[in-house]
């Protein structure tokens, strides 16, 4: 890490360690509050939401590596607020829009929380959404349904992927607009989800991108989402390992701490080995993206495949090595397990990433 990156990490880590309490999180989730307004305001004040926003829009103009630092901390502290979702959307869907100026200020200030809506049901991803943006006499109309929008209940706005005459379009739409019918539901990772039906009027400046730029924005969004979900998985997996190591040192059975048993030591060593290998690949994917190198797409997919496999294995092992306590909802380690599982299928699954990696490898 560079000196600035270390500063960013340390300051962010300090905030989350001091104020992001696991028990408060549990109580909040039980009430269906997935974004704590105080936390989100703090995120904005610390400049987190401005991280990838270009400097000419009063942002910090920082790269993927810096976003990944925050993503890793999101995993470590089990952040339920849609930080990686917003960072990915801001960087790839809003900033490149001709209407960026209209929206960015509010996003950076924290008043507007927006996540992307892509999925339309099982097996359907992005290639040809049935949600449509059509021209009508008075302007534009968005019609269709988006399903399983992760962190949807936290959003004030959705950025919806739709089909338009010239191909794809990204349309930003307030969730409280007339003709937007949302149904929220709780999720296993504590962030909530939303199904949303749209039959609503759209103004010109809500159409962020359309045609070829919308297609490349989709590619960029997916790629950034792969990297940030890998980084969050990495943070969660490492935290799960740390928790496991500490627990096995405390827990006494057969008259000795669990950590003294070699069978368990080697399993924890394996967890560490795989986590460190994943870390190398995730950081390399960030550097490839920030360096705009020709292999960046390959690296993003490799990172996603590796992080997903390792995250799954490590979080399963974390539960097993703890024993019964890890199967209770009061204990933290199962929550790493659940968040890692959710991240696996967010935007691009491990399987999709692997297939795309193979296609890129020729």
């Amino acid at each position, binding site marked *: 890490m560079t000196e600035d990156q270390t500063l960013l990490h340390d300051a962010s880590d300090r905030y989350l360690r001091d104020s992001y309490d696991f028990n408060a999180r549990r109580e909040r989730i039980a009430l269906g509050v997935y974004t704590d307004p105080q936390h989100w305001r703090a995120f904005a004040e610390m400049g987190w939401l401005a991280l990838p926003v270009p400097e000419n829009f009063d942002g910090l103009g920082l790269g993927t590596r810096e976003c990944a630092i925050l993503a890793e901390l999101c995993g470590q502290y089990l952040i339920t607020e849609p930080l990686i979702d917003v960072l990915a959307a801001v960087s790839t869907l809003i900033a490149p829009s001709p209407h960026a100026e209209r929206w960015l200020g509010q996003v950076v200030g924290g008043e507007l929380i927006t996540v992307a809506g892509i999925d339309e049901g099982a097996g359907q991803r992005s290639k040809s959404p049935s949600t449509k943006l059509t021209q009508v006499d008075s302007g534009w109309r968005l019609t269709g349904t988006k399903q399983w929008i992760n962190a949807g209940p936290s959003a004030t706005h959705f950025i919806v992927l739709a089909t338009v005459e010239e191909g794809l379009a990204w349309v930003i739409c307030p969730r409280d607009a007339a003709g937007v019918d949302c149904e929220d539901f709780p999720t296993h990772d504590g962030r909530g989800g939303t199904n949303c039906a749209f039959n609503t009027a759209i103004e010109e400046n809500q159409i962020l991108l359309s045609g070829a730029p919308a297609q490349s924005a989709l590619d960029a969004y997916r790629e950034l989402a792969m990297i940030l979900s890998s980084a969050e998985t990495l943070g969660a997996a490492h935290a799960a390992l740390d928790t496991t190591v500490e627990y096995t040192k405390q827990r006494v059975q057969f008259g000795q701490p669990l950590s003294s048993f070699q069978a368990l030591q080697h399993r924890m060593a394996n967890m560490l080995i795989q986590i460190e290998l994943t870390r190398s690949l995730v950081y390399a994917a960030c*550097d490839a993206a920030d360096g705009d190198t020709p292999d960046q797409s390959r690296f993003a997919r490799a990172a996603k495949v590796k992080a997903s496999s390792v995250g799954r294995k490590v979080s399963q092992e974390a539960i097993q090595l703890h024993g019964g306590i890890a199967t209770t909802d009061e204990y933290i380690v199962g929550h790493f397990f659940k968040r890692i599982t959710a991240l696996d299928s967010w935007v691009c699954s491990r399987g999709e990433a692997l297939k795309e990696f193979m296609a890129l490898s020729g």
Partner: protein
Amino acid sequence: MNASNPYPGDYSAFRESVREFLAVGLTPELARAGERTTSVFSDFEAGRQWQSILHAKGWGAPEWPLEHGGTGWDIQQRYIFLEECRLANAPNPVMMGVQMLGPMLMHFGTEAQKSAYLPGIISGDDVWCQGYSEPGSGSDLASLKTTADRDGDEYVVNGTKIWTSMAHYANWIFCLVRTDKSVKPQAGISFLLIDMATPGITVTPFSSLDGEIEQCQVFFEDARVPVSNLLGEENQGWTVAKYLLEFERGGQHFTIDLKKQLRKLRRLIGSEANAAAEDPTFVYRIAETEIDVMALEQTELRIKGTVAAGEHPGALSSLVKVSGTELGQQCAELLIEAAGQGAMPWQSEVLSPEYEGPTAAPEECVTTMAEYINSRSTTIYGGTAEIQRGIIAKHVLGL
């Protein structure tokens, strides 16, 4: 060049100079010996010849300091040199002298020892083997029983060493011997340099699983060794050995060879109607292995960055050893699956660089099975994978 390379500097001229040297110095016979290498050792004579060519060029020991005949190259230059040698199929000289004993001698040796032994090591005129393991002492090395009893200006050595690679070619052996039985095991060990021509030493070579002879057992029966051949102080041998084990683990670069294996795999399944290529699950396994190799490569780069910054990579070296050797085994396994029955013929003479006759296996597969068989030992020598995991558990996780 990779995005994460800690060396953004321009090394292209250096790389070009290495390539120019290899184009002339590495004869087709030597490259053939390199290509037909099935373990860490190439054909002995070819390796020896290559060491003398490197030495003549001044590149006999790239990692050593200049004053002892090293190159003064930085870590990236050394990496480039290694990479180019591997890609050009240069054979591996017997490396126990240059890579292991050399650094020990420079660190612990007297001036007289340095001037007596270093020149022979770097020129390749002396061939050193490593006398550590014993039949009863493998991972628990400190339990070793070979004794060296002081008698005037000499030690009298009795006992036996095993897994002594290339001892049948070596004229010197560096040994861990017990000089004090009354203290705890580690505290009674000394490090001795022993001339293999000493009366009382016999060498018994034995075949490895692939039918080749690299391993030996060495027997000592009242072998008399001058006290001046002690490296470090008496009973300080464990300290010396630990430094060596660390050296053996540090700075390893597995991915150069792993990427070679993957390229070979791609060639194999890309050729004609390869049965394995028809199996979609096989193709997925290759892709997953490629991703694991990318992760390892980036980890090796991280370590290089750490070393370049003057820091110690610590247990990251153990991590690389475990992962690198296990991935090597995985690649070797994929290769025999891709080769199918084509990997089965056993034709020892093919491995000789002089051999020009027909091969029973397809050209691409002549070494495949032997490489697979020998890959099993990579997680055993130099500290087993279990020992490495123990190191990680203890030193990183604090268990």
